[in-house]
């Protein structure tokens, strides 16, 4: 078999830097190393023009003006800047923020911090498929609401949210609309005007660019979004984010966006077919498997499956030459299963048995078939030693069975 092991199927965590991206970045480490803020010599000018070219490439992918992009260290910083920056700038207008229960921690924890500072935050629930209902947003909006923040696509279950509808609601009520779009940009078409977004967080490393660089889109007209900077310093990025620009990173980010734009249509179709092949392959080989998330409104490369009666981490460990991730508690530092899966209402027992597959540019049909075979083999091995599988086979209802409470050591 010509398969190269291990197989990487965790593209929601990060992606490799595309060779073209790496080549574009290379000169900016050693030859064109100038500081974009050096306005008085050719080294600085070269850096500045590289940044502006990248800004245009990124703007082209999301349909905004280059000047509306603020470079950051990544999406965590972008989310912090968007949420805290807007909250601080609009505090006089209102102190209410709406978000969802399945947002990334960068959004949730920014909101939690604001709550400690006197803001009120509504965390909207999601449907069993992982969708935020725009009607819930409409109901939650009050005269004091200043910001709605809903992710474009979820990092665990890949569900794509109805942002355009939510954006219209926000516009009608004069409320700013932010989205953490890191999982969707470069994978599905994104246009800030079509989605009605005023702020959007981006990162390079989820779309085959380098780690450590991201951006925040900040609308500059209708409305002109005000933002209080979160770091003090040299006033870079028009005072919105101080700190010397990461030129090689930004150049790579730009190139990655350009490539993603060119490849998006063909890759989306290819990855959707691979995803369906993986899901069909799993179902053909195993029973008691459940899809988490929406059947169609999901990222092309995302598949999240619960393999009932098999704890997720033990399955990850069994799939030694396949890199995937799990919503099981035992893969987290908190010993709590995934809050995203819990928000779907699938129950903690099923959440513990979930595996997330993140297909990407490098994956092939052969790899998918190999993973299906390994899954079948290992799920069967682990079920053979699972007391739950045996009980379920004997007709015991695990939901009503009596369980002893765990003592924590």
């Amino acid at each position, binding site marked *: 078999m010509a398969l190269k092991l291990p197989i990487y199927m965790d593209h929601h965590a990060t992606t490799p830097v595309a060779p073209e991206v790496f080549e574009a970045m290379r000169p900016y480490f050693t030859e064109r190393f100038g500081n974009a803020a050096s306005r008085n010599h050719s080294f600085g000018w070269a850096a500045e023009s590289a940044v502006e070219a990248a800004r245009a490439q990124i703007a082209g992918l999301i349909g905004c003006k280059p000047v509306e992009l603020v470079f950051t260290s990544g999406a965590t910083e972008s989310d912090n800047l968007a949420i805290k920056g807007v909250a601080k700038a609009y505090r006089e207008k209102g102190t209410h923020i709406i978000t969802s229960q399945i947002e990334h921690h960068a959004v949730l924890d920014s909101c939690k911090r604001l709550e400690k500072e006197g803001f009120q935050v509504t965390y909207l629930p999601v449907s069993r498929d992982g969708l935020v209902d725009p009607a819930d947003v409409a109901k939650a909006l009050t005269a004091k609401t200043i910001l709605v923040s809903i992710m474009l696509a979820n990092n665990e279950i890949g569900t794509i949210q109805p942002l355009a509808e939510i954006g219209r609601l926000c516009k009608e009520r004069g409320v700013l609309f932010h989205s953490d779009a890191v999982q969707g940009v470069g994978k599905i078409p994104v246009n800030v005007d079509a989605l009605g977004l005023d702020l959007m967080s981006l990162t390079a490393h989820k779309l085959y660019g380098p780690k450590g660089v991201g951006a925040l889109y900040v609308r500059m007209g209708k409305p002109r979004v005000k933002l209080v900077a979160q770091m003090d310093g040299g006033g870079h990025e028009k005072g919105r984010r101080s700190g010397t620009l990461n030129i090689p990173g930004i150049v790579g980010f730009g190139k990655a966006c350009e490539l993603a734009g060119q490849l998006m249509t063909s890759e989306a179709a290819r990855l959707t077919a691979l995803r369906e092949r993986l899901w069909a392959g799993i179902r053909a080989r195993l029973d008691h498997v459940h899809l988490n998330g929406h059947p169609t409104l999901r990222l092309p490369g995302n598949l999240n499956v619960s393999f009932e009666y098999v704890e997720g981490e*033990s399955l990850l460990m069994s799939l030694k030459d396949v890199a995937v991730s799990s919503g099981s508690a035992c893969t987290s530092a908190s010993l709590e*299963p995934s809050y995203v899966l819990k928000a779907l209402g699938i129950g903690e027992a099923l959440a513990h048995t979930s595996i997330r597959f993140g297909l990407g540019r490098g994956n092939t049909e052969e790899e998918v078939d190999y993973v299906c075979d390994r899954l079948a083999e290992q799920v069967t091995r682990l079920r053979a030693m699972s007391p739950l599988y045996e009980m379920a086979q004997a007709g015991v209802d695990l939901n009503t069975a009596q369980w002893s409470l765990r003592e924590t*050591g």
Partner: protein
Amino acid sequence: MLYSAQVLDHFEHPRNMGNLPDASGVGMVGAPASGDVLKIQLKIVVDPDGTERIVEVKAKVFGCGSAIAATSLLTELIKGKTLAEAAQVKNRAIAVALALPPLKRHCSVLAEEALKAAIADYRQRSGTTGAAPAGTAPPTQ
């Protein structure tokens, strides 16, 4: 989670997994919602001198890698032992032998609890108390 070679060995080659149709005592602890369920089945034979001996042990486990390893190691530690000796097997010994990270210590605690539950089940079924008869020496390790 980066595990020790000991955990990986037990995880990949778990010992004594399966069922004992004629078990003398069965213990099951944990819950699906908390991510681990351990079941220990003991076959206990009483020697002519009254010593209760674990002649066979089988386990089933739903849980993470360290829960599987802890269960597997426990079965190894108690197989062939007297009940008095088995009762001395503590979670700490399992955690140390497997070099479990602090976050995974509860797996060894659960293994000890499953053993205790199996012994308690045996006591109940056999109507024994486990108290040493007068005049016998205390168990030695």
